[in-house]
């Protein structure tokens, strides 16, 4: 029996028949089946995923020390390797700690991916080919062909909007996995990680535009489960600064809405005169646009003051060694 036949027997056929049987329980909805099976498989893989995420986080924490070792022993490869192994040993981190769980999970993800493609049967040949993978369970035969309609989607054809969602969700997931900048970490490695955070989502977006939307649905479901898991294990990760900015912006907007309402209520009592163009002040901002509304003026004046403070010339701090 060749490796392909073994793969089909042990992994792919069980996955396909589980997918089809599950659809019978879920009202014949293939879309719902994809989502639920993804959740089940991710749930089953959770211990491995947990191990992988923790190992990744531990490796990220070690980055500054590894960078320091690289700097210290960069020319002596043997010494560097020794010191690195010593560091791993002392910290209890295994370099393959994040790799091994991923390698074990890979066949399951590949099988789920292949199962979805085969069951969707995008053309008559694919549907005929499906017969080679079916168990002789009555529930399997009664379920086929599956209903490819899910919400607005035809799961057998690509969908532009879902492709965008794939990219966006992948970006969020990548960001969360990425550690916030750590002092002393290798800046080049960080820059490369940043590039991958953009490239991978872009690539998957383009892929999703040509693949059936059933696959895109699987990727979206998988990404969402990933960042829920990631959040509970290690928080927002690289999204932390963005999250903070978002929260701040929302609160600013909410405050801003209160003052706008006040301005409206005063509009009947106060005439707003068109402001004459004025020379910008020290902050570089024209203040003519600040209208005469009282409460609005308070906030706007505060903002202008803040800008003014920002624009004040700062004392120069020369770098050591540069000034003689």
């Amino acid at each position: 029996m060749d490796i392909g036949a073994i793969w089909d027997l042990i992994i792919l056929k069980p996955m396909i028949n589980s997918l089809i049987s599950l659809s019978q329980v879920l009202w014949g909805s293939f879309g719902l089946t994809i989502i639920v099976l993804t959740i089940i498989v991710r749930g089953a893989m959770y211990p491995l995923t947990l191990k992988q995420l923790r190992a990744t986080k531990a490796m990220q924490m070690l980055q500054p020390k590894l960078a320091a070792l690289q700097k210290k022993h960069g020319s002596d490869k043997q010494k560097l390797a020794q010191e690195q192994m010593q560091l791993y040993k002392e910290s209890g981190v295994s370099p393959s700690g994040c790799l091994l769980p991923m390698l074990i999970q890979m066949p399951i993800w590949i099988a789920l991916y292949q199962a979805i493609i085969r069951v969707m049967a995008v053309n008559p040949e694919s549907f005929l080919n499906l017969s080679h993978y079916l168990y002789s369970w009555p529930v399997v035969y009664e379920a086929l062909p599956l209903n490819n309609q899910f919400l607005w989607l035809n799961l057998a054809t690509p969908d532009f909007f879902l492709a965008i969602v794939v990219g966006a969700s992948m970006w969020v997931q990548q960001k969360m996995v990425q550690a916030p900048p750590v002092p002393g970490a290798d800046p080049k490695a960080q820059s490369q990680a940043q590039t991958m955070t953009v490239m991978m989502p872009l690539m998957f977006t383009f892929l999703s535009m040509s693949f059936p939307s059933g696959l895109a649905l699987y990727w979206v479901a998988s990404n969402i489960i990933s960042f829920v898991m990631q959040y509970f294990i290690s928080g927002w990760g690289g999204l932390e600064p963005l999250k903070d900015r978002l929260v701040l912006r929302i609160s600013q907007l909410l405050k801003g809405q209160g003052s706008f309402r006040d301005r409206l209520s005063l509009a009947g009592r106060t005439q707003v005169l068109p402001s004459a163009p004025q020379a910008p002040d020290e902050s570089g901002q024209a203040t003519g646009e600040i209208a005469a509304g009282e409460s609005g003026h308070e906030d706007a004046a505060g903002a202008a003051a803040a800008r003014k403070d920002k624009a004040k010339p700062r004392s120069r701090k020369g770098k050591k060694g540069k000034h003689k």
Partner: protein
Amino acid sequence: MRIKKRSLKLAAFTALIAAGVVVTGCAGVGTAQAGWSGVTAGSGSVYLGSAGGKLVALNVENGFYQWQENLEGSTASTGLLGCAGASPAVIYATPVLSGDTLYVGDYSGRLYAYNINDRQSKSVLLNGATSKSMIGSPLVHDGTIFAGSTDGSLYAFDAASLTFKWKHDTGGEIWASPAAWQDSVLVASFDRKVYSLNSQTGQPNWDAPFECEGPIIASPVVYDDMVIVASLDRHVYALDAATGELLWSFPAAGDDEQAPSRWLWAAPVAGSGTLFVAGMDGLIYVLNPDNGQLDGTIDLEAPVASTPVIAGSRLIAVTDGGRVYSIDTTSYQKVELRNLDAAVSAPLGADNGTVYIHSVKESAVYAVNGETGALLWSTTIE
């Protein structure tokens, strides 16, 4: 230097992934689509739809090309932002010859009528400008041509002018070719039902369509005022052609032990007072048409997707791997005629004791003597 090396590695990795995206995006997913048109023989020629979207005519004696015509339909652009481009027409339906006119349908949902003498043609889209497809062969009966569509409707057109006459909606895609009985046309659908319609008006003949447990892909067969249907629920049903009443089923209800273990994809074949039903489990089930009792099974040891044919006193069946078997319709003895070593899923054609086999994957047509198994000729289709 180190910075450059790392940047180069990253650039190379990114380029590799991008190339992978473009290649897979342009290639698409799933099994490649090529069609599975069978072969029709008549008027000194054999006709088929090729994998390249052409209607091909070969000399019946030697397999030499007589003519070929590109069908005008094409499948929609596929792949990443349409980079794979539009493909030529894909033909699943076996052409049908009626007098001097050859009818064929393609995956774009277009029905064609070609005059085999001057090759003048006309065509019509079954369902206006939609992307729904024709998979089953059309049927010509009483001056009307009937064609099923994946939009779930059976269409009727005037056979001479291709003027629309009527259509009847079912609840699922229609892959099976329609069948005729007296002034009725019978059609089976993915909605698990068999319909009998008046061929002139499209009105239902039966009180209600017959319903089974699975979708129906195999074409219904009319035998002795019965309609025989093989379903993907792995049962064979015999219905009264006049009323649609169930006469028998194989296996009988509740008796699933005898049930085929895989799909019944090929249509049943009647010959010598016996019914032969080939399954994807590699078995040919021999049934008594009077009561559906199993008279025996013939093990071909490989799935059978193409509908067998009767040539003289023998049933000719081909497995999906290209093994050609001849089965005596009385003694059920099988003989392997030859191994084409080619994937075959298209229905077989037969004429005057010669069996015609189209392997879409190999782009070849084989003519085999149904009695001796001798290969009379084979032609590679462009």
